[in-house]
């Protein structure tokens, strides 16, 4: 539906409906190229430990950002993805209507005046603290999500790069070549997700490489390796999508009505993400754009308008010079 019109309607790597199914093949890699690799970040099991952020910095030698930028009163001091933050764990606290307590099978506590003869209290003390200001019983839920470069099927950063420093790898991922980037900074506002940034120290653009060096040697990316709950899963994109669909169905069955996959749909405005997410609320709650579109989708129309404006200029100056000299 939202296929970038400047791409050919048929060709290698395209599915019958015109979507780019295999960006590596569409770029020109031969048939023996490896399958498209990606991340599936299942935020429902993220515990906000930030091991991914630390592992990423360590492995990729990403420098410190220097500033401790706390987001509100949350535990988020990374704030946003950028040249020196290739993973970012978002922390969201939401006030929710209370749900019936779920027994976790843990031993309870006895009230202080209890003689010890009765059964264990199943409710922990201090339940009053869950009383909302209006007297309604409210609960709190925490949403945590490890954000990363989406490695878009139709990547704006790659499209607008004037040097070829950004390129598509054989795994279908998008990587910056440090020795080519001249620091023009065009990729920075082109990214619809606010991922890639320009680093002050070297004047160049940097972002997640999906650990190109590690995956080229049959190792999983550092963040996925470090994730203790498998919230970050790495693998061939086809397998990850199947796994994500199953996980979403399970959560919806359990009553997570707002659970949704983000970046999973190859028909979305960027042709689907190589790194996609299972979210428990709408994308903007996590600081993600709800319906991103690759800016270059409109580029043919932009050039046509610029061409019309250029012809207008010829015409106006022609008219201006056809009149009297004074």
């Amino acid at each position, binding site marked *: 539906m939202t296929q970038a019109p*400047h791409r050919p309607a048929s060709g290698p790597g395209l599915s019958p409906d015109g979507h780019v199914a295999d960006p590596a093949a569409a770029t020109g890699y031969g048939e023996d190229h490896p399958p498209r690799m990606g991340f599936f970040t299942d935020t429902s099991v993220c515990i906000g430990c930030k091991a991914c952020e630390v592992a990423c910095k360590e492995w990729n030698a990403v420098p410190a950002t220097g500033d401790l930028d706390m987001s*509100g*009163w*949350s535990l*988020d001091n990374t704030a*946003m993805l950028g040249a020196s933050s290739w993973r970012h764990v*978002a922390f*969201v*606290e*939401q*006030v929710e*209507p209370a749900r019936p307590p779920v027994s976790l099978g843990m031993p309870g506590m006895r009230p202080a005046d209890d003689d010890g003869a009765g059964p264990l209290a199943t409710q922990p003390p201090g339940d009053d603290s869950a009383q909302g200001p209006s007297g309604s019983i409210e609960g709190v839920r925490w949403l945590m999500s490890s954000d990363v470069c989406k490695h878009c099927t139709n990547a*704006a950063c790659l*499209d*607008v790069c*004037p*040097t*070829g420093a950004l390129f598509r790898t054989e795994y279908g991922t998008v990587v910056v070549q440090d020795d*080519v980037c*001249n*620091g*023009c*900074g*065009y990729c*920075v*506002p*082109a*990214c*619809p997700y*606010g991922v890639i*940034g320009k680093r002050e120290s070297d004047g*160049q653009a940097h972002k997640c490489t999906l650990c190109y060096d590690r995956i080229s040697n049959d190792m999983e990316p550092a963040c996925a390796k470090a994730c203790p709950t498998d919230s970050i899963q790495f693998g061939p994109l086809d397998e990850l999508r199947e796994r994500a669909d199953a996980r979403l169905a399970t959560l919806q069955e359990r009553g997570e009505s707002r659970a949704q996959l983000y970046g999973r749909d190859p028909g979305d405005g960027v042709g689907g993400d190589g790194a996609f997410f299972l979210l428990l609320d*709408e994308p*903007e709650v*996590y*600081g993600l754009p*709800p*319906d*991103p579109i690759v*800016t*270059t989708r*409109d*580029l043919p*129309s*932009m050039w046509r*308008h*610029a061409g*019309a*404006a*250029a012809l*207008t*200029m010829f015409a*106006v*100056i022609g*008219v*201006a*010079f056809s*009149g009297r*000299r*004074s």
Partner: protein
Amino acid sequence: MSRGGRGLEDATGDSPGLEDESEAGTGRGGRRRRGAETLMVPEAEFTSYYGRQVIHTPAWKVPDVPAYLYLGGMAGAAAVMGAAGDATGNDHLRRAGRFTAFGGSMLSLGFLIHDLGRPSRFLNMLRVFKVTSPLSMGTWILSPFATFAGAAAVAELRGVLLPVLERVAGARVAGLAAAVAPAVGRASGIGAGVFGPALSTYTAVLIADTAVPSWHAAYPELPFIFAGSGMASAGGIAMITSPVAEAGPARRMAVIGAGLELAATQRMEHRVGLVAEPFQKGRPGLLLKLAQGAMGAGALGALVAARLGRRGRAVSVVAGVLLNTGAALTRFGVYDAGVESAKDPKYTVIPQRERLDAKRAAAAEAAASAAEAGA
């Protein structure tokens, strides 16, 4: 839990604390808190992550890039003016056009290179020709333009350069140069004139081809704004440097250009909805209002100068300065408006949320009607 609805409380709340912040954290209708400012119109409801921006702010330098937009626009239109002046035998406008085109393109190039994070790697852009990158296309517009404009300017300077050449290289070489200079100048002037309008308008594509909401949404009108602005400034330069009696075409070009810029801006602001706000409010709004004032006054000055004839020289100079002030302010205002729209998440989130909701509603409707048809 309902979506939105806390914007007003957030906006009027004055006690910082955990509750406020956690509310912002859940982000229901949470804009950045605005102190005790009274809101006349309820804030649009939307959700964000602690009021933080979604996309990155453009990393380009100010004044480098707005100045680049202004100078490129002026140089491009000036090259066409120079070629047209040459064709119609108007020496003043030919000279003004050629010098302005060359000077503007050299300064443009300087600003463009200075803006790079690694200026020494400027040449990396000459190793690639990439139609999906407006900056790559711009490199291939600016490079030949500057070359042609340079040759045309050198030909224009032959009165000064030929005696020097004669002393350095001898009479024969100088004689040869003198013989070919007019033809080279004319051909180069036409070459620059062919690339000129592309140089003036491609910069609109350059900034529109981003995720910056106000720039991207404005893409249909931006090239016309820049083309009009470029003609106004190039015409303005000629009005400063040429006698009133010779500058008629420059005045007409400037007046029509100013009109085109003002009309295209109006149309854009009416069309783009919410993301027109950054063009109208705050610092960019002020810059653009000043730009429009200067543009209008400059155009009026051009008309008055034409009426006054020989006595209108001073008015012509002032009008030329006003037109160029307006053109420069336009670029700074447009640039600033884009930056503002990138910094405030509402300009990214609200249009996308509306689009997504509409898509979902359409899909649900299609599913419902399909089910009905099946039953």
